[in-house]
């Protein structure tokens, strides 16, 4: 008779082992709760609240927002370039060299490198008709008021960009400057021509 066939022995192999019911040791409970707490603190500090836009080293959307490059001169020029390429660059060229018989160059133009913004800001706001001398060449122009639809700040950025690009050196034009010029539309004879522009303060 082999061992397997003995069924009534005290150590039955098919008997499932059982554990006695005893309470979980208190230190395990305390440790688990402490770890959970630390995990929550870590999440609070580093998760960015699961915002998909927040990556380390930023810890919250507010912090990320505060580090966005603010509108300084560089941002002004960048925005100005973007608007210029969209609106003005089609005729005046991305390099500011203009188009023969259509648009005079802005690079090195005496109408751009002025002391103040009075003349240069009036041109995009009102357009130019008739003859205008630029860099020793007479142009017969019919420029629509391309800048009239732009916001004051965008137009200011464009003018600042034009006055600081391609070798031009002019003072920046601010949003308030554009507001002033926009308020003065119609204060001088229309349409804007070379003579009218010359009458404006440089």
């Amino acid at each position, binding site marked *: 008779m082999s061992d397997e066939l003995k069924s009534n022995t005290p150590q039955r192999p098919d008997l499932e082992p059982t554990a006695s019911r005893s309470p979980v040791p208190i230190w395990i409970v305390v440790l688990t709760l402490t770890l959970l707490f630390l995990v929550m603190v870590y999440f609070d500090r580093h998760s960015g609240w699961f915002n998909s836009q927040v990556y380390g080293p930023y810890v919250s959307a507010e912090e990320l927002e505060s*580090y966005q*490059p603010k509108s300084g001169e560089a941002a002004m020029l960048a925005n100005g370039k973007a608007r210029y390429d*969209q609106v003005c660059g089609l005729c005046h060229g991305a390099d500011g060299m203009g188009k023969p018989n259509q648009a005079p160059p802005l690079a090195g133009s005496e109408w751009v490198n002025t002391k103040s913004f009075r003349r240069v800001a009036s041109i995009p706001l009102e357009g130019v008709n008739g003859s205008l001398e630029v860099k020793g060449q007479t142009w017969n122009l019919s420029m629509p008021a391309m800048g009239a639809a732009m916001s004051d700040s965008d137009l200011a950025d464009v003018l600042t*960009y034009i006055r600081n690009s391609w070798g031009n050196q002019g003072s920046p034009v601010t949003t308030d400057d554009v507001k002033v010029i926009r308020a003065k539309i119609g204060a001088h004879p229309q349409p804007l021509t070379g003579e009218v522009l010359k009458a404006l303060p440089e």
Partner: protein
Amino acid sequence: MKNGFRVFLAALIALGASWCGFVLAPVLQLGGTKQTTILNSPDLYPVGRPGEANQGLQVYRTHGCAACHTEQVQQSGVACDLVLTSAGNNPMAVTNAISSLKLNDLDKDAADAAVDKITAVGGKAEIHIVATGPDVARGWGRRHSIAEDYLYDDPVQLGSVRIGPDLADVGARLPDANWQLVHLYAPQSVVKDSAMPPFRYLFRIQKIGRAPSPNALVFPKGFGPPAGYEVVPTARAQELVAYLLSLRADVPLHDAPFTQPLAASKP
């Protein structure tokens, strides 16, 4: 088994929880990633790679480049630099003001306070946001990588080992196609002590015919093929280089801001 149902339930909960954590949560968080706009510009980022560069991604994958190269720039911090844009009407006062100020490596509040101090004496200053960290210091990128960078990569070649440098921004860092080709053919000819193996089988050495091939490699002195021969890249090599040159992560984005120096205002 006495507790079969309980064991099943416990396994289901354990696997389900990890599925939620590793699959569901990332999809909810980043599954809807789409093109974003570049800071201070109306342009979208990223734009899809041209076809040749897309082929190059498969060449990159075939040759196991990701075994030694990563495509993920890390950033450990962010700092503000002050840049004086105008000294105003009283340069002496501004000079005195900035001599007592720290101008680099500031946090946001300190930078704001410093700008206020400079503005108070009539000057003008700008805050430039700069990413910091070992990867940025090595010149591997200007900002950390974000999910949008990989929008058109299939499969994404993140990599995890850096035997070679990170390549997330290599197209902006080394934009010369000939340099890239020479580097693939003979890495040590352009990077001394490079650990990269040469990939000569991506090139053909051939006798110069009536005229040299227009796409023959231009080698630095002492590394070219023997006289009368030239090295021309195969289509694979050209695709791979097109892909490498398309790896650019050099524009500021909302999720990874930095101040872009302005190239456009130069004549």
